[in-house]
């Protein structure tokens, strides 16, 4: 496998514009002759499908939801970054580039990150024109806030529902194209395989979730916009149906999977209540601005928090990081919380939580002040836990929240399979080892609106396509393998509901491939995951009929893929003998317990290549060069 | 023409016609009430009769009268059409449907209160409008009132119908403004204030008339009865 990043030559600030100039164009009247398949219609997929349809391509868009508006992009709360410098605080494209690259702990490509920063301003323009009701100040101009530890105010937001508003903007743009018949939308279709003909991605095979029919669709290029794989961990902040099947099938057809171990854990989630729990709810990080995190000094203390005197409380973040205190980055806060709980200092019924206490802030200011600032979050917490956070400290615990890894793509967002493009969270490209707040929405829309429409055209204009129909041998083979897999899942007839097996996988992933990873733990995970997988194929119970809506069958297929992907995550984590961003190896830390990167040995993208079910995947390396920003150590002391 | 048809065909178009006719009928009610209050002059119906004669002889009023009847018919007919169509939108009913938790009773019962009001209207017109306007011999409307309201059952029906009219208007008045797009944060308090006058005070004032005649004009009516 050859990994050619196709990064254009020239100075970083000129790369994208030069590249656009040199790209081949498809004549507007010829565009309707090309069919583009877009799988997934969240932020990245909907914006890509809408833009391509508007340009004149024939677009087929697919979603396992009934409506594109249900995609999980909708749940993003905080905001979207753009270096508009409206706050006149010294922001610039270069600064956003620098912050994002540094925030990613120097494990992303400079050229990609620069381009992201460069086009991000246009995203805001586009969304405002679409009618996205961003927050404004009394002058009527757009308001900004600082977010995720950035020193400038560059985050645009729409209350706590920025993701929703941006997605609905992209959904509206897509709806317009569906109405204009340039895009055909296929709802409740789940992509179960990719068809590669003569080395080119030429189509997909989907299961119609309403009828169970296995259908195939031919195109000249396939775009995957299917999101992240955090549900490998079972409990995460992901939506229930978020899955890795599309990218995993593509991986098995020859697309490299990059940096799977780069997962992000968010420190302030509502902790797990019991076995019934289906997902974790995130609460904005901003809570840490005024809340103090603590655990009892005595391990196993069962007193209620109000009975624990000040002297017997351990405000461990303030103790360990005197200058940053409770505001240390996400990964540090998360890791320390887990460490406290593992040592037995955890609180609450499950002992897997720490306190986030607002008593001092209420005393210092007032209850009304807190209410004004965090009222909706406090209400949400109250609604879920039935505890009043104004009088009892909140209980919080970290949860998997985002995956930086994904299918490997070059500068043009194309994978190692020609004609297969990946956009949004599903690719690995821009966040390195750690994603900064308000950057996910930015990347999804940058890819969909402003990058892919160019690079895809270049591919179509410079490629020869053989005439292919659904009766082509390649499609027959993919259809047969999809059908065989569905039949196989239905015929296991074991005893265990698939959700239970998923939960078992999640426990292993969280325990050994979660926040603090060790060689021993990862090795153990590599032994346990195949065992669970084996048990799945022997003992899973998939009930119902394959010819109507069957959530169990859908779940089973997704879990089967998580069971393979989980192993790759562990393998990648084991091979990466350094700590960086969301990947923390206990063996590689400074004496103060900070992440210790190894730029000499690991300044590369790990792109895993599928070599067969029974064989170990092959590791390919794309070296990362830093010409503009010299890697430095992160310190929050 | 096409756009008028499209307007009529649209759900909002029909509702707008409902609200316009409804508001027109409310204006009529006000006018009618002002006339009726002359009955309290205690002058043996002199002023009231003079007012009636003016209405009959004035060509403008006579024209408006036709519009008035048209408005009643359009309002009633559209109500039935909308009610029927709305019923078709949920062929499979809920096993349990707690609409009452979410909506005021007045809003849920407009078709019933409206139907009673329609019946009332027929009886009312038959009692007073037809004999005074088209009767073979000339009758005094004041005497007619005295006679009709001497019947306690007739009075009771009037009072009930008028209270239901109030209940109908309790929903209808604010609803008309909502449908015409005139309800917003700025005007809602004003509309709500006016609504109280319209749905409570006006029907109440109407309802006092049969009561007044039954209890306080019994003597007069007995005299009249004796005369005839």
């Amino acid at each position: 496998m050859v990994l050619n990043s196709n990064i254009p030559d020239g100075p970083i600030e000129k790369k994208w514009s030069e590249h656009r100039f040199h790209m081949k164009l498809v004549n507007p009247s010829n565009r309707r002759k090309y069919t583009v398949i877009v799988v997934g219609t969240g932020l990245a997929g909907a914006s890509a499908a809408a833009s391509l349809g508007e340009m004149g391509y024939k677009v087929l868009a697919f979603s396992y939801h009934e409506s594109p508006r249900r995609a999980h992009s909708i749940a993003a709360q905080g905001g979207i970054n753009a270096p508009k410098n409206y706050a006149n605080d010294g922001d610039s494209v270069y600064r956003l580039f620098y912050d994002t690259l540094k925030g990613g702990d120097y494990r992303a490509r400079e050229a990609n990150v620069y381009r992201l920063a460069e086009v991000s301003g246009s995203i805001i323009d586009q969304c405002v024109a679409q009618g996205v009701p961003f927050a404004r100040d009394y002058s009527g101009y757009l308001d900004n806030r600082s977010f995720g530890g950035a020193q400038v105010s560059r985050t645009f937001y729409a209350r706590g529902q920025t993701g929703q508003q941006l997605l609905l903007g992209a959904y509206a743009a897509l709806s317009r194209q569906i109405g204009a018949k340039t895009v055909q939308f296929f709802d409740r279709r789940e992509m179960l395989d990719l068809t590669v003909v003569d080395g080119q991605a030429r189509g997909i095979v989907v299961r119609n979730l309403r009828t169970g029919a296995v259908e195939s669709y031919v195109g000249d290029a396939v775009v995957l916009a299917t999101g992240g794989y955090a549900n490998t961990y079972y409990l995460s902040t992901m939506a229930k149906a978020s899955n890795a099947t599309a990218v995993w099938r593509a991986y098995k057809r020859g697309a490299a999977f990059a940096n799977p171990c780069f997962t992000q854990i968010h420190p302030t989630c509502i902790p797990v209540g019991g076995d019934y729990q289906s997902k974790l709810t995130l609460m904005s990080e901003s809570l840490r601005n005024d809340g103090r995190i603590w655990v009892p000094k005595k391990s196993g203390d069962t007193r209620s928090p109000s009975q624990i005197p000040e002297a017997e409380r351990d405000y461990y973040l303030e103790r360990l990081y005197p200058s940053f205190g409770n505001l240390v980055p996400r990964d540090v806060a998360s890791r320390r919380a887990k460490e406290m709980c593992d040592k037995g200092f955890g609180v609450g019924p499950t002992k897997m939580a720490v306190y986030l206490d607002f008593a001092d802030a209420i005393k210092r200011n007032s209850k009304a002040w807190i209410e004004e600032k965090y009222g909706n979050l406090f209400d949400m917490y109250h609604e879920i836990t039935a505890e009043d956070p104004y009088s009892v400290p909140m209980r919080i615990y970290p949860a998997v929240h985002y995956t930086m890894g994904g299918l490997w793509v070059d500068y043009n967002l194309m994978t190692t399979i020609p004609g297969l493009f990946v956009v949004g969270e599903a690719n690995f490209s821009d966040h390195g080892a750690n994603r900064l707040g308000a950057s996910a929405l930015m990347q999804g829309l940058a890819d969909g609106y402003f990058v892919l429409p160019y690079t895809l055209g270049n591919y179509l204009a410079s490629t020869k396509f053989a005439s292919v129909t659904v009766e082509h041998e390649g499609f027959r083979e993919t259809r047969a393998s999809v059908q065989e897999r569905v039949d196989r899942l239905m015929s296991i007839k074991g005893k265990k509901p698939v959700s239970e097996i998923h939960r078992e996988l999640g426990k292993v992933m969280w325990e050994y491939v979660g926040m603090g990873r060790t060689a021993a733990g990862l090795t153990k995970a590599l032994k346990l995951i195949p065992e669970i997988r084996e048990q799945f194929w022997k003992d899973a119970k998939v009930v119902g009929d394959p010819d109507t809506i069957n959530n169990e069958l859908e779940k089973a297929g997704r879990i089967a893929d998580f069971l393979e992907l989980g192993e790759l995550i562990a393998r990648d984590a084991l091979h990466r003998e350094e700590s960086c961003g969301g990947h923390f190896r206990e063996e590689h830390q400074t004496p103060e317990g900070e992440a210790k990167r190894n730029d000499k040995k690991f300044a590369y993208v790990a792109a895993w290549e599928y070599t067969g079910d029974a064989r170990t995947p092959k590791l390919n390396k794309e070296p990362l060069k830093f010409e503009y920003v010299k890697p430095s150590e992160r310190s929050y002391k | 023409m096409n756009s008028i048809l499209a307007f009529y065909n649209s759900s909002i178009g029909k509702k707008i016609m409902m609200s316009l006719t409804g508001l027109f009928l409310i204006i009529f009610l006000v006018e009618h009430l002002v006339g009726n209050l002359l009955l309290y002059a205690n002058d043996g119906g002199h002023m009231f009769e003079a007012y009636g004669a003016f209405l009959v002889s004035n060509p403008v009023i006579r024209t408006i009268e036709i519009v008035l009847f048209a408005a009643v018919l359009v309002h009633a007919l559209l109500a039935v059409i909308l009610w029927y169509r709305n019923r078709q939108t949920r062929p499979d009913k809920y096993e349990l449907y707690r609409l009452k938790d979410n909506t005021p009773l007045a809003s849920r019962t407009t078709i019933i209160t409206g139907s009673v009001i329609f019946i009332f209207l027929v009886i009312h017109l038959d009692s007073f409008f037809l004999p005074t306007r088209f009767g073979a011999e000339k009758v005094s409307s004041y005497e007619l009132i005295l006679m009709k309201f001497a019947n306690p059952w007739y009075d009771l029906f009037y009072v009930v119908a008028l209270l239901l009219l109030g209940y109908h208007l309790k929903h209808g008045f604010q609803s008309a403004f909502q449908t015409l797009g005139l309800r917003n944060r700025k005007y809602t308090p004003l509309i709500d204030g006016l609504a109280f006058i319209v749905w409570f005070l006006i029907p109440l004032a109407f309802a006092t008339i049969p009561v007044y005649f039954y209890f306080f004009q019994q003597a007069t009516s007995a005299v009249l009865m004796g005369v005839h």
Partner: protein
Amino acid sequence: MKFTLKIWRQKNQNDPGRFVTYEVNNISADASFLEMLDVLNNELVQKGEDPVAFDHDCREGICGSCGMMINGRAHGEGRSMATCDVRMRMYKDGEDLVVEPWRAKPFPVVKDLVVDRRAFDRIMQAGGFISVKTGAAPEANAVPVPKANADEAMDAAACIGCGACVASCPNSSAMLFVAAKVSQFALLPQGQPERRERVERMIEQMDKEGFGACSNNYACEAECPKGISVTHIARLNREFLRAEFTEKA
């Protein structure tokens, strides 16, 4: 906690469907309504029975996938909540719960509690957008928007398209859904050029789908998980009147 559930079961669109009664025990008071159904489904799977199908995804009240009639209320007890936000502690231990799909002619039942809400998408396709080409937008701060307008547009834009307004309306009217979008764009300068066509097309499509007329009952506002106000319906009516009775520019 334990509950007796009377749930609507319907294999597909052609099946007449029926209620089936189930018992669930040992339900945590902190469990959400959907997690309670997960527990039931897990038991059904273990017994080899077909689990109850229901739409759901984000489970934090924003995707709009979930929605069912619980004891006669759209999204169950409580106000301003989607079904996934409803916690079992809001019900009495041992309570009987009737669980039904949204019922409206334009929302046919697909399976059990899953209904087809594509009618909403078709209304959006008819005009629920501002036609700006990718890349054709002016600088974001070129046009100021009064803060009050932006805030009210945001109130309307909070709609999650769950269909509770239709489900709770005695006329199965979609006015609150349509109003939320029309109102959002009518309040913003960016929405002005297509103001007339937008409202006309969306209302035409809404009527074509078979949703009922609004009779200003306001059940929609009472059941809307995002608390969207019926003043947006007033604005929709105003927009419609304006479009119908003014000259095309």
